[in-house]
């Protein structure tokens, strides 16, 4: 048997060096593709991942309105967290890499690596986009208050909030306020931070641990007020927080 196997091995077609090189590179490519698949086909940038989410959900290619900034480790809790700097200098961190894009008739909100959803564009006035993930939970975030402690040292207070994005907000807006009546009928007041270019992040501070219920604001009535620099009311808009499709 051993002799027979040796004869068969000796009779195998001889490959030139070039052919062996091609064979080796082909096998290497197959193995690398397998490793790629085992890792769930990661792409090099978050934007590529967002575009793939659009394609695999058969959504049209959108114009990106909000993209996650580069990761910054200072005061962030997780490597997926991304920190935005508002016009007033407040540093707001969202949990997860969120994208918002706009097409002709809808806004697309995507959490990279997780899920994507859409809401219709507002016919007039600012569009409200709840940042909602695949299980209907909306984006959480936090801002950090730093300050000296009595007796020395520094104190870091993490303020958690639930987040929604407003865009197409008029340029002359200096302040935003939003109130939403939650499922228990309690009015909750949220404040906005100007991210520039007509985008505002509206946050509803969470009362405590476990306060943020899954999708608490979806389908709930809201009132949005935009104010000018001089404090006068620029726009008041009422509606229902859209449930993402």
């Amino acid at each position, binding site marked *: 048997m051993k002799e027979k196997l040796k004869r068969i091995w000796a009779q195998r077609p001889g490959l030139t060096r070039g052919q062996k090189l091609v064979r*080796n590179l082909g096998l*290497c490519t197959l193995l690398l593709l397998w490793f790629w698949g085992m890792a769930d086909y990661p792409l090099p940038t978050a934007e590529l991942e967002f575009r793939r989410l659009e394609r695999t959900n*058969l959504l049209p290619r959108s114009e990106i309105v909000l993209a996650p900034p580069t990761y910054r480790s200072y005061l962030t809790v997780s490597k997926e967290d991304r920190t935005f700097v508002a016009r007033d200098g407040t540093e707001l961190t969202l949990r997860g890499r969120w994208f918002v894009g706009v*097409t002709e008739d809808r806004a697309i909100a995507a959490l990279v690596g997780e899920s994507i959803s859409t809401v219709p564009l507002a016919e007039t006035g600012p569009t409200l986009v709840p940042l909602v993930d695949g299980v209907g939970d909306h984006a959480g975030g936090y801002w950090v208050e730093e300050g000296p402690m009595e007796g020395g040292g520094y104190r870091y207070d993490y303020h958690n909030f639930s987040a929604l994005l407003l865009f197409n907000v008029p340029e002359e807006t200096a302040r935003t306020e939003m109130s939403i009546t939650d499922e228990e009928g309690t009015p909750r007041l949220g404040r906005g931070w100007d991210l520039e270019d007509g985008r505002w992040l509206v946050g509803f501070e969470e009362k405590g641990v476990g306060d943020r219920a899954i999708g608490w604001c979806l389908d709930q009535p809201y009132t949005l007020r935009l104010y000018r620099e001089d404090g006068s009311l620029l726009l008041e808009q009422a509606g229902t927080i859209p449930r993402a499709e």
Partner: protein
Amino acid sequence: MIQKNHNVSVWLETAVSGIRFKPDRQAVEEELREHIEDKTLDLMRIFPGMTEEEAREQALDRMGDPEEIGKELAKIHKPWLGYLWRASKWALGLLAAAALVVCAATNDHFQNARHPLWGERATSYGTVRGEKAELGGYTFQIVGAAFLDYPEDGAYQDVYQVTVRVSSLKFWERIDPAALYSGLTATGPDGVGQPMDRATVNMDLEAGASQITVGIEQTRWDLFSREFAIYLEGHDWKENDRVTLDFHFGRGDFALTVDHMEQVVME
């Protein structure tokens, strides 16, 4: 003897000096050395009066100018191909070893435990090659259509099952099942459209049975496709019962229809 070997060694060293890839240089040097020895023995056989030293010198003369030979050999033996081939051997060896380690370390060999590359979860019945549509680089085709006829006194209800395959050559971008569930409405023979973003499940706790009577589930998937079974409540089977699947996506809408349902008697 040392002088003779030295002449041969110097000749060989000059002849192969242009070959930069070491394994090739060694192999060619060995071959040339054997050739010189063969020539020497031939000369000694043809001219019996010739000494070994004279025969070897003659053999070297007849081999030619080692510098010219060196130039020709350098043109033929490209070092980059040799280095690339060697690198490819190492790369293949390392990747194969890494693959074995990964397979041994994961529970689902050859698979990503979170998103297996292929698998099967449920059975599809009534194989057909039905209507096809293309959108966004995906091909949608009905590949199964059956009326599942369960016993009257059993725990399961009669249902229509229509199977759709969604395929794409881009294996890294298979369709997101959530997109299909939210974008599909199925209409059975009763004419009532049922959105597939929700499901009705029939559960018989005593019998330990659960069954989707209205809804969708993924049945099979592989590198290039996913198959989904769509269920609608059925009552009396007719061969020409019609089921229409309306797909509504951000990129476009289309419908697929099947009007021949195979009756499958289930036990």
